Protein backbone atom coordinates (compact mmCIF):
# COMPACT_ATOMS: atom_id res chain seq x y z
CA UNK A 1 0.00 0.00 0.00
CA UNK A 2 1.16 3.48 -0.86
CA UNK A 3 2.48 5.30 2.20
CA UNK A 4 3.00 9.01 2.62
CA UNK A 5 4.45 11.13 5.41
CA UNK A 6 2.29 13.81 6.98
CA UNK A 7 2.46 16.14 10.00
CA UNK A 8 -0.66 15.72 12.07
CA UNK A 9 -2.08 15.91 15.63
CA UNK A 10 -2.88 12.79 17.62
CA UNK A 11 -6.60 13.52 17.41
CA UNK A 12 -6.40 13.81 13.62
CA UNK A 13 -4.20 10.74 13.38
CA UNK A 14 -6.84 8.65 15.14
CA UNK A 15 -9.46 9.94 12.70
CA UNK A 16 -7.15 9.31 9.74
CA UNK A 17 -6.37 5.80 11.02
CA UNK A 18 -10.09 5.12 11.38
CA UNK A 19 -10.75 6.22 7.80
CA UNK A 20 -7.88 4.05 6.57
CA UNK A 21 -9.52 1.14 8.41
CA UNK A 22 -12.79 1.72 6.56
CA UNK A 23 -14.67 3.58 9.30
CA UNK A 24 -17.85 4.71 7.56
CA UNK A 25 -19.86 6.12 10.42
CA UNK A 26 -18.89 8.69 13.01
CA UNK A 27 -21.11 10.51 15.52
CA UNK A 28 -19.73 12.84 18.16
CA UNK A 29 -20.30 15.88 20.30
CA UNK A 30 -17.74 18.66 20.81
CA UNK A 31 -15.56 18.61 23.90
CA UNK A 32 -12.00 19.76 24.54
CA UNK A 33 -9.34 18.35 24.11
CA UNK A 34 -10.62 16.08 21.30
CA UNK A 35 -12.19 18.67 18.97
CA UNK A 36 -9.67 18.15 16.17
CA UNK A 37 -10.98 14.60 15.81
CA UNK A 38 -14.63 15.48 15.24
CA UNK A 39 -13.63 18.33 12.88
CA UNK A 40 -11.38 15.98 10.88
CA UNK A 41 -14.22 13.48 10.55
CA UNK A 42 -16.64 16.23 9.48
CA UNK A 43 -14.20 17.27 6.75
CA UNK A 44 -12.98 13.93 5.44
CA UNK A 45 -15.72 11.37 6.15
CA UNK A 46 -17.91 12.65 3.27
CA UNK A 47 -14.97 12.16 0.86
CA UNK A 48 -15.03 8.43 1.57
CA UNK A 49 -18.81 8.16 1.23
CA UNK A 50 -19.38 7.56 4.94
CA UNK A 51 -21.78 9.23 7.37
CA UNK A 52 -20.81 12.00 9.78
CA UNK A 53 -23.31 13.27 12.36
CA UNK A 54 -22.76 15.96 14.98
CA UNK A 55 -25.07 14.59 17.64
CA UNK A 56 -27.17 16.63 20.06
CA UNK A 57 -25.42 15.04 23.05
CA UNK A 58 -22.96 12.33 23.98
CA UNK A 59 -25.94 10.12 24.78
CA UNK A 60 -27.27 10.53 21.28
CA UNK A 61 -23.79 10.06 19.79
CA UNK A 62 -23.13 6.71 21.47
CA UNK A 63 -26.62 5.49 20.61
CA UNK A 64 -26.14 6.54 16.99
CA UNK A 65 -22.96 4.49 17.03
CA UNK A 66 -24.98 1.57 18.44
CA UNK A 67 -27.55 1.91 15.65
CA UNK A 68 -25.03 2.31 12.85
CA UNK A 69 -23.09 -0.73 14.07
CA UNK A 70 -26.35 -2.71 14.19
CA UNK A 71 -26.84 -1.68 10.57
CA UNK A 72 -23.40 -3.02 9.63
CA UNK A 73 -21.29 0.13 9.49
CA UNK A 74 -17.75 0.42 10.87
CA UNK A 75 -18.39 2.93 13.62
CA UNK A 76 -16.53 5.37 15.82
CA UNK A 77 -17.27 8.05 18.38
CA UNK A 78 -14.88 10.18 20.39
CA UNK A 79 -15.04 12.36 23.46
CA UNK A 80 -13.15 13.35 26.55
CA UNK A 81 -13.65 12.34 30.17
CA UNK A 82 -17.00 13.96 31.17
CA UNK A 83 -18.45 13.06 27.79
CA UNK A 84 -17.24 9.48 28.11
CA UNK A 85 -19.01 9.28 31.48
CA UNK A 86 -22.22 10.23 29.68
CA UNK A 87 -21.64 7.50 27.10
CA UNK A 88 -21.31 4.70 29.65
CA UNK A 89 -24.88 3.44 29.46
CA UNK A 90 -24.62 3.20 25.69
CA UNK A 91 -21.27 1.41 25.89
CA UNK A 92 -22.83 -1.14 28.21
CA UNK A 93 -25.63 -1.72 25.67
CA UNK A 94 -23.05 -2.07 22.88
CA UNK A 95 -21.16 -4.66 24.94
CA UNK A 96 -24.39 -6.48 25.81
CA UNK A 97 -25.64 -6.53 22.22
CA UNK A 98 -22.14 -7.60 21.06
CA UNK A 99 -21.72 -4.80 18.57
CA UNK A 100 -18.33 -3.75 17.23
CA UNK A 101 -17.55 -0.09 17.92
CA UNK A 102 -14.50 2.10 18.48
CA UNK A 103 -14.70 4.73 21.23
CA UNK A 104 -11.96 7.29 21.75
CA UNK A 105 -11.36 8.94 25.12
CA UNK A 106 -8.86 11.80 25.03
CA UNK A 107 -8.68 12.15 28.79
CA UNK A 108 -8.74 15.44 30.67
CA UNK A 109 -8.58 16.30 34.36
CA UNK A 110 -11.43 15.34 36.66
CA UNK A 111 -13.50 14.71 38.68
CA UNK A 112 -16.54 16.71 37.61
CA UNK A 113 -15.98 19.37 34.99
CA UNK A 114 -12.34 19.30 36.09
CA UNK A 115 -10.16 21.08 33.57
CA UNK A 116 -8.89 20.56 30.04
CA UNK A 117 -5.35 19.54 30.98
CA UNK A 118 -4.09 16.05 30.06
CA UNK A 119 -4.76 13.33 32.63
CA UNK A 120 -4.90 9.55 32.98
CA UNK A 121 -7.58 9.42 35.63
CA UNK A 122 -10.17 7.48 33.62
CA UNK A 123 -8.15 4.24 33.68
CA UNK A 124 -10.47 2.56 36.17
CA UNK A 125 -13.54 3.58 34.17
CA UNK A 126 -12.04 2.29 30.92
CA UNK A 127 -10.55 -0.99 32.11
CA UNK A 128 -13.27 -2.05 34.54
CA UNK A 129 -16.13 -1.65 32.10
CA UNK A 130 -17.34 1.77 33.16
CA UNK A 131 -21.05 1.23 32.72
CA UNK A 132 -23.37 -1.22 34.43
CA UNK A 133 -23.06 -4.98 34.13
CA UNK A 134 -20.29 -7.59 33.86
CA UNK A 135 -18.53 -6.48 30.72
CA UNK A 136 -15.20 -5.32 29.37
CA UNK A 137 -13.93 -3.29 26.48
CA UNK A 138 -10.58 -3.83 24.86
CA UNK A 139 -8.60 -0.72 25.86
CA UNK A 140 -5.52 0.44 23.92
CA UNK A 141 -3.21 3.23 25.08
CA UNK A 142 -1.07 4.79 22.32
CA UNK A 143 2.02 6.77 23.35
CA UNK A 144 2.76 8.69 20.16
CA UNK A 145 0.93 10.01 17.13
CA UNK A 146 2.10 7.21 14.83
CA UNK A 147 0.91 4.64 17.33
CA UNK A 148 -2.41 6.46 17.69
CA UNK A 149 -2.84 6.11 13.92
CA UNK A 150 -1.80 2.47 13.90
CA UNK A 151 -3.90 1.47 16.91
CA UNK A 152 -6.96 3.15 15.42
CA UNK A 153 -6.75 0.60 12.62
CA UNK A 154 -6.04 -2.25 15.05
CA UNK A 155 -9.09 -1.18 17.06
CA UNK A 156 -11.47 -1.66 14.14
CA UNK A 157 -10.02 -5.08 13.39
CA UNK A 158 -10.39 -6.17 17.02
CA UNK A 159 -13.90 -4.70 17.34
CA UNK A 160 -15.06 -6.70 14.32
CA UNK A 161 -13.17 -9.85 15.25
CA UNK A 162 -14.68 -10.10 18.73
CA UNK A 163 -17.88 -8.04 18.27
CA UNK A 164 -16.81 -5.86 21.16
CA UNK A 165 -16.40 -2.15 21.94
CA UNK A 166 -12.76 -1.07 21.76
CA UNK A 167 -11.56 2.07 23.50
CA UNK A 168 -8.55 4.12 22.46
CA UNK A 169 -7.42 5.75 25.69
CA UNK A 170 -5.26 8.82 25.10
CA UNK A 171 -4.85 12.12 26.86
CA UNK A 172 -4.91 15.78 25.94
CA UNK A 173 -1.17 15.79 25.16
CA UNK A 174 -1.41 12.94 22.70
CA UNK A 175 -4.54 14.41 21.15
CA UNK A 176 -3.13 17.87 20.52
CA UNK A 177 0.54 17.14 19.88
CA UNK A 178 1.74 17.15 16.25
CA UNK A 179 4.20 14.60 14.94
CA UNK A 180 5.15 13.35 11.49
CA UNK A 181 3.66 9.93 10.69
CA UNK A 182 3.44 7.49 7.80
CA UNK A 183 -0.10 6.87 6.59
CA UNK A 184 -1.90 4.53 4.18
CA UNK A 185 -4.57 5.70 1.79
CA UNK A 186 -8.16 5.88 3.07
CA UNK A 187 -10.48 2.96 2.33
CA UNK A 188 -13.67 3.72 0.42
CA UNK A 189 -16.52 3.36 2.92
CA UNK A 190 -18.52 1.02 0.73
CA UNK A 191 -15.76 -1.60 0.61
CA UNK A 192 -16.15 -2.62 4.26
CA UNK A 193 -19.90 -2.57 4.78
CA UNK A 194 -21.53 -5.83 5.71
CA UNK A 195 -18.47 -8.04 5.28
CA UNK A 196 -19.15 -11.34 7.05
CA UNK A 197 -21.72 -9.90 9.41
CA UNK A 198 -24.75 -12.15 9.08
CA UNK A 199 -26.26 -10.63 12.25
CA UNK A 200 -26.63 -7.15 10.73
CA UNK A 201 -30.00 -5.40 10.41
CA UNK A 202 -30.49 -5.03 6.67
CA UNK A 203 -34.10 -6.16 6.13
CA UNK A 204 -35.09 -9.83 6.43
CA UNK A 205 -35.29 -10.64 2.71
CA UNK A 206 -34.45 -14.31 2.25
CA UNK A 207 -33.73 -15.00 5.91
CA UNK A 208 -35.26 -14.98 9.39
CA UNK A 209 -35.47 -11.58 11.08
CA UNK A 210 -32.33 -10.39 12.89
CA UNK A 211 -32.70 -8.84 16.32
CA UNK A 212 -30.10 -6.64 18.02
CA UNK A 213 -30.68 -6.66 21.76
CA UNK A 214 -29.19 -7.04 25.20
CA UNK A 215 -32.46 -7.74 27.02
CA UNK A 216 -32.76 -11.34 28.28
CA UNK A 217 -35.69 -11.65 30.61
CA UNK A 218 -36.32 -15.41 30.47
CA UNK A 219 -34.96 -17.32 33.44
CA UNK A 220 -31.32 -18.19 32.89
CA UNK A 221 -31.07 -16.32 29.58
CA UNK A 222 -29.03 -13.42 30.91
CA UNK A 223 -26.67 -15.75 32.71
CA UNK A 224 -26.08 -17.54 29.40
CA UNK A 225 -25.34 -14.22 27.69
CA UNK A 226 -22.91 -13.35 30.47
CA UNK A 227 -21.17 -16.72 30.24
CA UNK A 228 -20.77 -16.20 26.50
CA UNK A 229 -19.23 -12.77 27.13
CA UNK A 230 -16.90 -14.19 29.77
CA UNK A 231 -15.76 -16.88 27.34
CA UNK A 232 -14.98 -14.18 24.79
CA UNK A 233 -13.05 -12.16 27.38
CA UNK A 234 -11.01 -15.24 28.25
CA UNK A 235 -9.94 -15.65 24.62
CA UNK A 236 -9.08 -11.95 24.40
CA UNK A 237 -7.02 -12.14 27.60
CA UNK A 238 -5.00 -14.94 26.05
CA UNK A 239 -4.55 -13.51 22.59
CA UNK A 240 -4.63 -9.75 22.67
CA UNK A 241 -1.92 -8.73 25.13
CA UNK A 242 0.21 -5.85 23.86
CA UNK A 243 3.15 -4.19 25.62
CA UNK A 244 6.63 -2.78 25.06
CA UNK A 245 9.46 -3.97 27.29
CA UNK A 246 12.82 -2.19 27.59
CA UNK A 247 15.97 -3.49 29.32
CA UNK A 248 14.04 -6.09 31.28
CA UNK A 249 17.04 -8.47 31.24
CA UNK A 250 19.16 -6.53 33.69
CA UNK A 251 16.80 -4.00 35.19
CA UNK A 252 16.99 -3.39 38.93
CA UNK A 253 14.13 -0.93 38.73
CA UNK A 254 11.37 -1.31 36.16
CA UNK A 255 9.38 1.80 35.33
CA UNK A 256 5.76 1.07 34.44
CA UNK A 257 3.86 3.72 32.50
CA UNK A 258 1.51 3.99 29.53
CA UNK A 259 0.57 6.63 26.97
CA UNK A 260 2.08 10.09 27.30
CA UNK A 261 3.44 9.23 30.74
CA UNK A 262 5.50 6.45 29.16
CA UNK A 263 7.24 8.96 26.85
CA UNK A 264 8.35 11.05 29.81
CA UNK A 265 9.37 7.90 31.68
CA UNK A 266 11.39 6.77 28.66
CA UNK A 267 13.30 10.06 28.61
CA UNK A 268 14.11 9.60 32.28
CA UNK A 269 15.16 6.02 31.61
CA UNK A 270 17.53 7.10 28.83
CA UNK A 271 19.21 9.64 31.09
CA UNK A 272 19.52 7.11 33.93
CA UNK A 273 20.98 4.52 31.57
CA UNK A 274 23.60 7.07 30.44
CA UNK A 275 24.56 7.34 34.11
CA UNK A 276 24.97 3.55 34.17
CA UNK A 277 21.87 2.88 36.23
CA UNK A 278 20.16 -0.42 35.42
CA UNK A 279 16.67 0.78 34.72
CA UNK A 280 14.09 -0.98 32.56
CA UNK A 281 10.57 -0.23 31.54
CA UNK A 282 7.25 -1.89 30.82
CA UNK A 283 4.81 0.08 28.72
CA UNK A 284 1.41 -1.62 28.65
CA UNK A 285 -0.27 -0.93 25.28
CA UNK A 286 -3.34 -3.08 25.89
CA UNK A 287 -4.66 -1.75 29.20
CA UNK A 288 -7.44 -4.30 29.10
CA UNK A 289 -6.44 -7.06 28.77
CA UNK A 290 -3.59 -5.97 31.05
CA UNK A 291 -0.23 -7.51 30.09
CA UNK A 292 0.33 -9.44 33.31
CA UNK A 293 2.85 -11.76 31.66
CA UNK A 294 5.22 -8.81 31.12
CA UNK A 295 5.89 -8.76 34.86
CA UNK A 296 8.43 -11.58 35.02
CA UNK A 297 11.89 -10.08 34.37
CA UNK A 298 15.09 -12.15 34.49
CA UNK A 299 16.16 -10.21 37.57
CA UNK A 300 13.85 -11.61 40.24
CA UNK A 301 14.91 -8.88 42.66
CA UNK A 302 13.74 -6.06 40.40
CA UNK A 303 11.59 -3.38 41.97
CA UNK A 304 8.80 -1.65 40.12
CA UNK A 305 7.95 2.03 39.90
CA UNK A 306 4.51 2.80 38.50
CA UNK A 307 4.18 6.34 37.11
CA UNK A 308 0.81 7.77 36.18
CA UNK A 309 -1.01 11.01 35.52
CA UNK A 310 -3.44 9.90 38.24
CA UNK A 311 -3.20 8.97 41.89
CA UNK A 312 -2.70 5.30 41.22
CA UNK A 313 -5.17 3.49 38.98
CA UNK A 314 -3.02 1.25 36.74
CA UNK A 315 -1.08 0.74 39.95
CA UNK A 316 -3.77 -1.72 41.05
CA UNK A 317 -3.29 -3.85 37.92
CA UNK A 318 0.45 -3.92 38.57
CA UNK A 319 -0.22 -4.96 42.16
CA UNK A 320 -2.39 -7.81 40.88
CA UNK A 321 0.28 -8.82 38.36
CA UNK A 322 3.06 -8.84 40.96
CA UNK A 323 0.89 -10.38 43.65
CA UNK A 324 3.26 -9.23 46.37
CA UNK A 325 6.32 -10.89 44.80
CA UNK A 326 8.27 -7.71 44.15
CA UNK A 327 8.76 -4.26 45.64
CA UNK A 328 6.43 -1.65 44.28
CA UNK A 329 6.61 2.14 44.38
CA UNK A 330 4.35 4.78 42.92
CA UNK A 331 4.74 8.28 41.52
CA UNK A 332 1.66 10.09 40.32
CA UNK A 333 0.09 13.48 39.88
CA UNK A 334 -3.29 14.42 38.54
CA UNK A 335 -5.64 17.32 37.83
CA UNK A 336 -3.20 18.78 35.30
CA UNK A 337 -0.04 17.94 37.22
CA UNK A 338 2.35 15.67 35.33
CA UNK A 339 5.35 13.86 36.84
CA UNK A 340 8.44 15.37 35.19
CA UNK A 341 11.64 13.66 34.03
CA UNK A 342 13.41 15.12 37.06
CA UNK A 343 10.78 13.90 39.48
CA UNK A 344 11.05 10.40 38.01
CA UNK A 345 14.86 10.44 38.16
CA UNK A 346 14.82 11.65 41.76
CA UNK A 347 12.29 8.98 42.72
CA UNK A 348 14.39 6.25 41.07
CA UNK A 349 17.53 7.41 42.88
CA UNK A 350 15.59 7.41 46.14
CA UNK A 351 14.63 3.77 45.56
CA UNK A 352 18.12 2.70 44.41
Amino acid sequence: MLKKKILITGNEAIAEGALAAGCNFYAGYPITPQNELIAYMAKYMPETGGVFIQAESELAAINMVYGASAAGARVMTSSSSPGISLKQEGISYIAGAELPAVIVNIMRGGPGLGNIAPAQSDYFQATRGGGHGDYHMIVLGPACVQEAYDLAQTSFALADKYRIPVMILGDGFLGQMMEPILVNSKSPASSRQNEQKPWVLSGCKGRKPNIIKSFALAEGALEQLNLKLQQKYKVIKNKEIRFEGLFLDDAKIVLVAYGTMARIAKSALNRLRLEGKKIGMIRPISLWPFPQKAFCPRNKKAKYLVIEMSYGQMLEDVQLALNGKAGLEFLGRSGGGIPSEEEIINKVKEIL
Partner: protein
Amino acid sequence: MEKIFCRPESLYDVPTHYCPGCGHGIAHRLVAEIIDQLGIREKTIGIAPVGCAVIAYDYWKFDCSEAAHGRALAVATAIKRVRPQNIVFTYQGDGDLAAIGTNETIHAANRGENLTVVFINNAVYGMTGGQMAPTTLLGQKTSTTPSGRDRVKHGYPLKISEMLALLPGVNYIERVSLHNPQEVLKAKSAIRQAFENQINNMGFSLVEILSPCPTCWGLNPKESLDWIRDHMQKEFPLGRIK
Protein backbone atom coordinates in the same frame (compact mmCIF):
# COMPACT_ATOMS: atom_id res chain seq x y z
CA MET B 1 -63.34 -20.02 -0.85
CA GLU B 2 -61.58 -16.67 -1.04
CA LYS B 3 -59.74 -15.66 2.10
CA ILE B 4 -60.44 -11.99 2.78
CA PHE B 5 -59.01 -11.52 6.27
CA CYS B 6 -56.03 -13.12 7.98
CA ARG B 7 -53.20 -12.51 10.39
CA PRO B 8 -50.63 -10.15 8.86
CA GLU B 9 -47.44 -11.82 7.68
CA SER B 10 -45.53 -9.20 9.69
CA LEU B 11 -47.01 -10.55 12.93
CA TYR B 12 -45.92 -13.84 14.51
CA ASP B 13 -48.73 -16.19 15.52
CA VAL B 14 -48.04 -15.93 19.26
CA PRO B 15 -49.95 -14.53 22.23
CA THR B 16 -48.64 -11.19 23.54
CA HIS B 17 -47.69 -10.46 27.13
CA TYR B 18 -49.88 -7.35 27.25
CA CYS B 19 -52.62 -6.91 29.88
CA PRO B 20 -56.29 -7.38 28.91
CA GLY B 21 -57.56 -4.21 27.27
CA CYS B 22 -54.10 -2.81 26.54
CA GLY B 23 -53.75 -0.80 23.32
CA HIS B 24 -50.33 -2.16 22.32
CA GLY B 25 -51.80 -5.28 20.69
CA ILE B 26 -53.99 -3.17 18.41
CA ALA B 27 -51.17 -0.74 17.61
CA HIS B 28 -48.73 -3.59 16.85
CA ARG B 29 -51.28 -5.11 14.51
CA LEU B 30 -51.96 -1.83 12.70
CA VAL B 31 -48.25 -1.38 12.09
CA ALA B 32 -47.96 -4.98 10.85
CA GLU B 33 -50.96 -4.62 8.52
CA ILE B 34 -49.58 -1.43 6.97
CA ILE B 35 -46.13 -2.95 6.49
CA ASP B 36 -47.78 -5.90 4.73
CA GLN B 37 -49.97 -3.67 2.59
CA LEU B 38 -47.01 -1.55 1.50
CA GLY B 39 -44.99 -4.69 0.76
CA ILE B 40 -42.02 -3.48 2.82
CA ARG B 41 -41.65 -6.26 5.44
CA GLU B 42 -38.37 -7.49 4.01
CA LYS B 43 -36.76 -4.08 4.14
CA THR B 44 -38.24 -2.75 7.37
CA ILE B 45 -36.14 -2.21 10.51
CA GLY B 46 -38.13 -1.49 13.69
CA ILE B 47 -36.77 0.05 16.88
CA ALA B 48 -38.31 -1.31 20.07
CA PRO B 49 -38.35 1.04 23.05
CA VAL B 50 -37.77 0.49 26.74
CA GLY B 51 -41.23 0.17 28.23
CA CYS B 52 -44.05 -2.33 27.89
CA ALA B 53 -43.28 -2.77 24.17
CA VAL B 54 -39.61 -3.67 24.76
CA ILE B 55 -40.10 -7.14 23.26
CA ALA B 56 -42.17 -5.94 20.29
CA TYR B 57 -39.65 -7.91 18.19
CA ASP B 58 -41.14 -11.09 19.64
CA TYR B 59 -44.37 -10.15 17.84
CA TRP B 60 -43.15 -8.43 14.67
CA LYS B 61 -41.66 -10.56 11.95
CA PHE B 62 -38.99 -8.26 10.54
CA ASP B 63 -35.55 -6.97 11.59
CA CYS B 64 -35.59 -5.05 14.88
CA SER B 65 -33.23 -3.41 17.33
CA GLU B 66 -33.66 -2.52 20.95
CA ALA B 67 -32.71 0.94 22.02
CA ALA B 68 -31.79 2.27 25.45
CA HIS B 69 -34.59 4.16 27.20
CA GLY B 70 -35.26 7.35 25.24
CA ARG B 71 -32.63 6.77 22.55
CA ALA B 72 -34.76 5.12 19.88
CA LEU B 73 -34.55 8.09 17.52
CA ALA B 74 -30.76 8.31 17.83
CA VAL B 75 -30.53 4.61 16.96
CA ALA B 76 -33.05 5.01 14.13
CA THR B 77 -31.27 8.07 12.74
CA ALA B 78 -28.05 6.12 12.41
CA ILE B 79 -29.66 3.03 10.88
CA LYS B 80 -31.51 5.11 8.29
CA ARG B 81 -28.38 7.13 7.42
CA VAL B 82 -26.37 3.94 6.96
CA ARG B 83 -29.19 2.20 5.07
CA PRO B 84 -31.33 4.82 3.34
CA GLN B 85 -32.90 2.11 1.19
CA ASN B 86 -34.47 0.44 4.24
CA ILE B 87 -37.67 1.55 6.00
CA VAL B 88 -36.90 2.47 9.60
CA PHE B 89 -39.42 3.26 12.31
CA THR B 90 -39.49 3.70 16.06
CA TYR B 91 -42.26 2.59 18.39
CA GLN B 92 -42.08 4.58 21.61
CA GLY B 93 -44.13 5.33 24.69
CA ASP B 94 -44.71 8.72 26.28
CA GLY B 95 -41.99 8.38 28.90
CA ASP B 96 -39.51 7.20 26.31
CA LEU B 97 -40.30 9.80 23.66
CA ALA B 98 -41.38 12.81 25.71
CA ALA B 99 -39.40 12.59 28.98
CA ILE B 100 -36.08 10.76 28.97
CA GLY B 101 -35.78 10.95 25.17
CA THR B 102 -37.07 14.48 24.56
CA ASN B 103 -33.69 15.63 23.32
CA GLU B 104 -33.33 12.83 20.77
CA THR B 105 -36.94 13.32 19.68
CA ILE B 106 -36.61 17.06 19.09
CA HIS B 107 -33.28 16.83 17.31
CA ALA B 108 -34.17 13.91 15.05
CA ALA B 109 -37.33 15.82 14.10
CA ASN B 110 -35.43 19.04 13.62
CA ARG B 111 -32.88 17.35 11.36
CA GLY B 112 -35.84 16.18 9.32
CA GLU B 113 -34.69 12.57 9.48
CA ASN B 114 -36.65 10.49 6.99
CA LEU B 115 -38.17 8.29 9.69
CA THR B 116 -41.56 7.10 10.90
CA VAL B 117 -42.45 7.38 14.58
CA VAL B 118 -45.31 5.49 16.23
CA PHE B 119 -45.85 7.26 19.54
CA ILE B 120 -48.02 5.50 22.11
CA ASN B 121 -49.50 7.96 24.60
CA ASN B 122 -51.21 6.24 27.52
CA ALA B 123 -50.60 9.01 30.04
CA VAL B 124 -48.64 6.76 32.37
CA TYR B 125 -45.45 4.71 32.81
CA GLY B 126 -46.94 1.26 32.30
CA MET B 127 -44.04 -1.17 32.60
CA THR B 128 -42.80 0.18 35.91
CA GLY B 129 -46.24 0.11 37.47
CA GLY B 130 -48.04 3.34 36.73
CA GLN B 131 -45.95 6.38 37.65
CA MET B 132 -46.61 9.90 36.36
CA ALA B 133 -45.69 10.32 32.68
CA PRO B 134 -45.05 13.63 30.92
CA THR B 135 -48.52 13.20 29.40
CA THR B 136 -50.36 12.38 32.64
CA LEU B 137 -53.50 14.53 32.87
CA LEU B 138 -53.98 17.16 35.59
CA GLY B 139 -55.72 15.49 38.48
CA GLN B 140 -54.84 12.00 37.27
CA LYS B 141 -53.77 9.72 40.10
CA THR B 142 -50.62 7.65 39.58
CA SER B 143 -48.26 5.90 42.00
CA THR B 144 -46.05 9.02 42.07
CA THR B 145 -48.95 11.49 42.09
CA PRO B 146 -51.14 9.77 44.69
CA SER B 147 -53.24 12.92 45.13
CA GLY B 148 -53.46 13.52 41.41
CA ARG B 149 -51.20 15.51 39.10
CA ASP B 150 -50.96 19.06 40.38
CA ARG B 151 -49.81 21.73 37.92
CA VAL B 152 -47.90 23.55 40.69
CA LYS B 153 -45.93 20.51 41.82
CA HIS B 154 -45.75 18.48 38.61
CA GLY B 155 -46.25 20.81 35.69
CA TYR B 156 -48.66 20.32 32.82
CA PRO B 157 -49.28 17.42 30.44
CA LEU B 158 -46.63 17.80 27.72
CA LYS B 159 -48.02 18.26 24.23
CA ILE B 160 -44.92 17.11 22.44
CA SER B 161 -46.67 16.60 19.10
CA GLU B 162 -47.76 20.26 19.01
CA MET B 163 -44.21 21.28 19.98
CA LEU B 164 -42.68 19.17 17.23
CA ALA B 165 -45.11 20.63 14.70
CA LEU B 166 -43.28 23.96 15.08
CA LEU B 167 -40.09 22.51 13.63
CA PRO B 168 -39.46 23.06 9.92
CA GLY B 169 -37.86 19.61 9.65
CA VAL B 170 -41.14 17.88 10.48
CA ASN B 171 -43.33 16.77 7.59
CA TYR B 172 -46.35 15.09 9.15
CA ILE B 173 -47.90 14.74 12.61
CA GLU B 174 -51.31 13.33 13.40
CA ARG B 175 -52.93 12.38 16.69
CA VAL B 176 -55.27 9.40 16.65
CA SER B 177 -56.96 7.17 19.23
CA LEU B 178 -57.86 3.54 19.77
CA HIS B 179 -61.05 4.12 21.78
CA ASN B 180 -63.51 2.87 19.17
CA PRO B 181 -63.42 1.03 15.81
CA GLN B 182 -63.85 4.21 13.74
CA GLU B 183 -60.87 5.80 15.46
CA VAL B 184 -58.84 2.62 15.03
CA LEU B 185 -59.43 2.84 11.29
CA LYS B 186 -58.31 6.47 11.31
CA ALA B 187 -55.24 5.42 13.27
CA LYS B 188 -54.46 2.83 10.64
CA SER B 189 -54.70 5.33 7.83
CA ALA B 190 -52.44 7.79 9.71
CA ILE B 191 -49.83 5.06 10.23
CA ARG B 192 -50.04 4.26 6.53
CA GLN B 193 -49.48 7.93 5.70
CA ALA B 194 -46.44 8.06 8.01
CA PHE B 195 -44.84 5.04 6.30
CA GLU B 196 -45.72 6.25 2.80
CA ASN B 197 -44.05 9.55 3.59
CA GLN B 198 -40.83 7.72 4.34
CA ILE B 199 -41.07 5.65 1.18
CA ASN B 200 -41.46 8.92 -0.75
CA ASN B 201 -38.53 10.53 1.10
CA MET B 202 -40.77 13.20 2.61
CA GLY B 203 -39.02 13.39 5.97
CA PHE B 204 -40.01 13.07 9.62
CA SER B 205 -43.50 11.69 10.27
CA LEU B 206 -45.07 10.95 13.64
CA VAL B 207 -48.37 9.39 14.65
CA GLU B 208 -49.39 9.90 18.27
CA ILE B 209 -51.81 7.21 19.40
CA LEU B 210 -53.97 7.65 22.52
CA SER B 211 -53.93 4.15 23.89
CA PRO B 212 -55.65 2.53 26.89
CA CYS B 213 -53.79 1.19 29.94
CA PRO B 214 -56.56 -0.34 32.08
CA THR B 215 -54.13 -1.84 34.60
CA CYS B 216 -52.41 1.42 35.51
CA TRP B 217 -55.54 3.51 35.19
CA GLY B 218 -57.43 1.24 37.62
CA LEU B 219 -60.29 0.89 35.15
CA ASN B 220 -61.74 -2.03 33.25
CA PRO B 221 -61.09 -2.21 29.48
CA LYS B 222 -64.45 -0.65 28.54
CA GLU B 223 -64.08 2.16 31.09
CA SER B 224 -60.58 2.79 29.78
CA LEU B 225 -61.87 3.40 26.26
CA ASP B 226 -64.48 5.77 27.68
CA TRP B 227 -61.78 7.56 29.69
CA ILE B 228 -59.85 8.29 26.50
CA ARG B 229 -63.06 9.62 24.90
CA ASP B 230 -64.18 11.67 27.90
CA HIS B 231 -60.90 12.91 29.36
CA MET B 232 -57.77 12.20 27.40
CA GLN B 233 -58.82 13.51 24.03
CA LYS B 234 -59.92 16.79 25.62
CA GLU B 235 -56.32 17.42 26.63
CA PHE B 236 -54.94 15.81 23.48
CA PRO B 237 -57.34 16.70 20.62
CA LEU B 238 -57.43 14.24 17.74
CA GLY B 239 -56.64 15.07 14.15
CA ARG B 240 -53.91 16.31 11.87
CA ILE B 241 -51.47 18.56 13.73
CA LYS B 242 -49.14 19.15 10.79
